[in-house]
């Protein structure tokens, strides 16, 4: 699960879950990066107490730079698949201003409170620990705005395949969930002193969504071409 040999001198620890795969595929052989997808680790990188284990952190010299690609998909869990009680919400962080008629409106404050609770437990806690461990620069890579039309999700549903009886949620709703997620992550980065790296502009359409040529063959990830753009972004951000 780990690429890059730290004994040979990688200087940048890339730590995350599924979104690291696009980077891994797109960066080619770049020995400066040590990439780990913690989903494949045994024992798990996070203990039952929700904290990153000392054993995991001990693998990394503290003076390495850290690229966090932790989490980044709660918006997908929450709203990719249409719930039987179709919902919408107003989001102050989104260009999607209105709500769709006929849908149940959840107050923004309630959605944000729910997101904050989940992200603090699953994402922000580990990010904070990484920030405390690494003394070098820390960059958090924003998850891609993978918000394709329903047809793409239906063509490449993966494990969502059996769960689409109610269909795919409207792009506008998914956009707002992504925008909320991104705003909260950006806020946390500022709080812990990590640099927030937004999706590269050249990968986005006029609405800020990922262009089709950067979609993976699944509902929620970028592909290798997207990973190559992020790699380039990281090199610039880290002054390499």
């Amino acid at each position, binding site marked *: 699960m780990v690429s890059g040999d730290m004994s040979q001198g990688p200087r940048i620890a890339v730590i995350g879950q599924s979104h690291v*795969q696009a980077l891994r595929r797109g960066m080619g052989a770049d020995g400066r990066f040590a990439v780990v997808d913690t989903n494949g680790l045994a024992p798990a990188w996070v203990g039952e107490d929700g904290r990153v284990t000392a054993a995991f952190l001990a693998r990394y010299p503290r003076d390495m730079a850290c690229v966090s690609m932790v989490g980044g998909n709660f918006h997908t869990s929450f709203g990719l698949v249409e719930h039987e009680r179709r919902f919408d919400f107003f989001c102050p962080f989104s260009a999607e201003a209105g709500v769709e008629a006929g849908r*149940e409106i*959840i*107050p923004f404050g309630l959605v944000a*409170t*729910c997101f904050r609770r989940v992200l603090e437990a699953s994402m922000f806690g580990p990010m904070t620990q990484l920030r405390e461990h690494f003394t070098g620069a820390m960059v958090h890579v924003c998850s891609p705005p993978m918000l394709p039309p329903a047809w793409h999700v239906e063509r490449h549903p993966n494990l969502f395949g059996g769960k689409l009886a109610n269909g795919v949620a409207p792009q506008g709703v998914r956009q707002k969930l992504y925008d909320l997620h991104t705003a909260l992550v950006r806020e946390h980065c500022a709080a812990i002193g990590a640099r927030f790296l937004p999706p590269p502009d050249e990968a986005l359409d006029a609405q800020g969504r990922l262009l089709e040529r950067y979609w993976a063959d699944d509902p929620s990830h970028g592909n290798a071409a997207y990973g190559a753009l992020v790699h380039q972004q990281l090199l610039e951000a880290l002054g390499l």
Partner: protein
Amino acid sequence: MSGRHPYAGQPAERFWRSASGAVGELDPVGKVSFRIGAADRVVTAGSCFAQHVARHLGLAGFRHHVTEPGHPLIGPVERAAFQYGMFSARYGNIYTARQLRQLLARAYGEFVPVAECWDGPQGGVVDPFRPQIQPGGFLHLAELRADRAQHLAAVRRAVEEMEVFVFTLGLTEAWLDRRDGAVFPLAPGVAGGVFDEAVHEFHNFTVDETAQDLAAALGMIRARNARARVVVTVSPVPLAATALPRHVWVSTTYSKAVLRVAAEQVCAGMEGVDYFPSYEIITSPHVRGRYFAADGRAVLEEGVEHVMRVFLRHYGGAAGGAVAAEEDTHLAEMERIVRVICDEEAIRGE
């Protein structure tokens, strides 16, 4: 000259000496006019004491009918913080009979108050008629309007679907909008808005006003749901503050007396409307003040349990087990899938 007199041979509870007993044994309920079945949908509303009643109804096996539970994607703790499920709909505390009457009128489009929104104390806007339901306030008027439309629809469902309505009268003191008589649950400026003497005025409801408002409100419910039966109670919780230039306890005794008399009058005049003496259970000398917390105002859980024990004894003969709370597995299932997909991503990437 011994012989028959009006008190001779009456039941023991009619005499102070024989009605006294252990604290937990007080049961001042006489004959009730109906029972509440396990399937009967019970709708709740009222003052803060009614929150205890609503919470315990479900625990006691009654079917607390919540028509505005919040979206199940949101966890129960967060929904509770936003006052979903506290009462049958998210109306917050309803302290006065006029407030209840106006809520029903608003729900059915018979009353559109001039005051539509207030600036929130922490930004955003709040609903003047339920200023504390939304921590941090609503984003803007559009969001408030959307939420209000859903809320009033939930109120209509509650009215039309209920078998039983439990309403707890709380206060007589209130703040009104001079322009249209709209009653606010809290004084403007306390939890949003700005107090303006030119717009806002104080009013202390009388017995007649309270009885008329309560009867009118129950009449509005019955007009849309003839089968609805009603339990009226009076909150034992003293006033937190009085707007009158006198001691808060004096205002409290006036307020509770008015509510108690109004409740008596309405219950005596309407079929299927019972008075339930929760006020008496908590405040009776029989319980020797044990049901109030150290501040002399908050009601302790032991007291609430006593009230609900008596309520269950008299109304709950047919009530069954507690109805399971609505659970939603959608989000947990989606999170599991995302985790698995993420695992697959890792495998594919090797």
